């Protein structure tokens, strides 16, 4: 254990020396529409915050060749907005500070679940503002409902546009509410895409923390390939 901590400490030091490029740029897009009440919103934010406080997740962040991660939080419902702008994580303190910022995000949102508008925001405003290049760009979408906004451009068209620019879109459907039985397949058909894209469902809002932690490790460490292969068997 001591050896592990020492190795981890050395990794943090070497990572803090670098900053020109990151291993992964991660966009966390969280559904805060009408079906997500205050309690469910808090569970999602707590799940993300706890994941960034997790040693395994931190190890995944700092274990890449650049030892750094860019992350931003987008909350989406009727109108998506960037809740936390691009933040560079290159040591444990950065990860903990980000966790604190996530817990402080106020509850906003409106009734509708406008997946397309969120994808537009990511394509038009979030990704162009990335402060430095990344080896891998991952959009991490979570939610418990399909797009219900009669969008001008369907989600899958916008998904394909993002994938064409090299973005991987992963899904974390929350199997709760009216669409619990169908939402996972809808995410597979309309949301995910790109290299090694995968769906990792949460069984409930209470299960969100477990799912998001596992998902982060897979996304950040770039080991999602085996999971996808297993899922396709």
């Amino acid at each position, binding site marked *: 254990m001591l050896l592990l901590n020492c190795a981890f400490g050395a990794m943090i030091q070497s990572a803090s020396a670098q900053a020109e490029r990151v291993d992964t740029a991660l966009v966390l897009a969280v559904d805060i529409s009408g079906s997500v009440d205050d309690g469910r919103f808090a569970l999602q934010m707590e799940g993300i915050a706890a994941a960034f406080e997790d040693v395994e997740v931190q190890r995944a962040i700092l274990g890449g060749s650049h030892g750094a991660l860019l992350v931003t939080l987008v909350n989406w419902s009727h*109108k998506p*907005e960037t809740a936390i702008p691009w933040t560079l994580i290159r040591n444990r303190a950065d990860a903990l500070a980000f966790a604190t910022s996530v817990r402080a995000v106020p509850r906003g949102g409106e009734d509708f679940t406008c997946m397309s508008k969120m994808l537009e925001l990511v394509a*038009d405003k979030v990704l*162009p*503002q990335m402060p430095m290049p990344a080896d891998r760009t991952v959009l991490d979408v979570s939610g418990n409902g399909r797009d219900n906004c009669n969008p001008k451009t369907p989600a899958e068209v916008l998904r394909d546009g993002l994938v064409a620019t090299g973005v991987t879109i992963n899904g974390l459907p929350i199997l709760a509410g009216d669409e619990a039985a169908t939402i996972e397949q809808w995410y597979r058909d309309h949301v995910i895409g790109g290299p090694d894209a995968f769906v990792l469902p949460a069984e409930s809002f209470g299960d969100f923390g477990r799912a998001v932690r596992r998902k982060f490790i897979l996304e950040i460490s770039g080991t999602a390939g085996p999971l996808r292969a297993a899922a396709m068997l």
Partner: protein
Amino acid sequence: MAGMDLFGGAIGTSPPRSASLRAMARRLFDSRQRPAQPAKRAAVGFAAAARPMSRIACCLVCALLALPIAARPADAADLTVRQVVERLVRAADGPPADFSGMDLSFLDLSGLDFRAANLTGTDLYGTDLSRSSFAGANLSRARLDRSIIIATDFTGADLSGALLRRPAAFTTFEVVAAEAPIFVRANLSGAAIFGKLSQADFSDANLAGARMGAYRDAQLINLSRMELVDCDFSGADLTGADLSQARLAFADLTGADLTAANLSGADLSRADLTGATLTGTQLAGADLDGAVLTDARGLDRALGLDAARNRGTVVD
């Protein structure tokens, strides 16, 4: 160009390209508005065919002029949202982003940082600017009519001669302080402003010659009043501004310069004008119920004070 029937052409200070499009549209609109005379036409019958060829040629020209407008979708701005963002990102390490004279109408430009950008004469009609920052930006002569300015920050921006009519400053009909736009130290001299901007912060702004008076519809029936309830105008320069009929109840006008401003018919109930300059200010018909005029300067040279309402309740 969509929306031109609402305000376009009336003042003619929007960007040149938009102005020319508007002029073309107006010609087309006028030609369509000419009353048809079916009875007369029926009587004339085939005689119409004998009309001069010039008339047919005129129709053809009109149709050709209409084509670019008809083919132009409502959201066809000069740039896409992504292109705007890319310009802003590039400007972070170089000279300020330049959008002067461009048509950015109807785009969703919310949540962006336009600080110090050049938007001189830019057409922002119907554009969503909510929660964006224009601090120090140049928006002189820009058109912001019908734009969405929820919590938009215009601190120190140059909005001289700009058009800001009927913007949406609140998510619902309810006035929420956190959503009100910010115009602290902004230059709004000569700007045309109309709509509901209650609780907005205009402190230390330059509003000299700004046109914020009541608006009467085309039928001259309905009178719409500028909503500036509980706004902060402390230290603002309002010399020569038109605030006739404006709702300024509970407004903070402490230290404001209202020299030669038109406040006739304005609602100044409970407004605080402590230390304000009122030389030549038109107050006829203004409601001064509970207004505070302590240490107001030039009050003896204010105009129409005798005709102001509830003068007896003024706090001197």
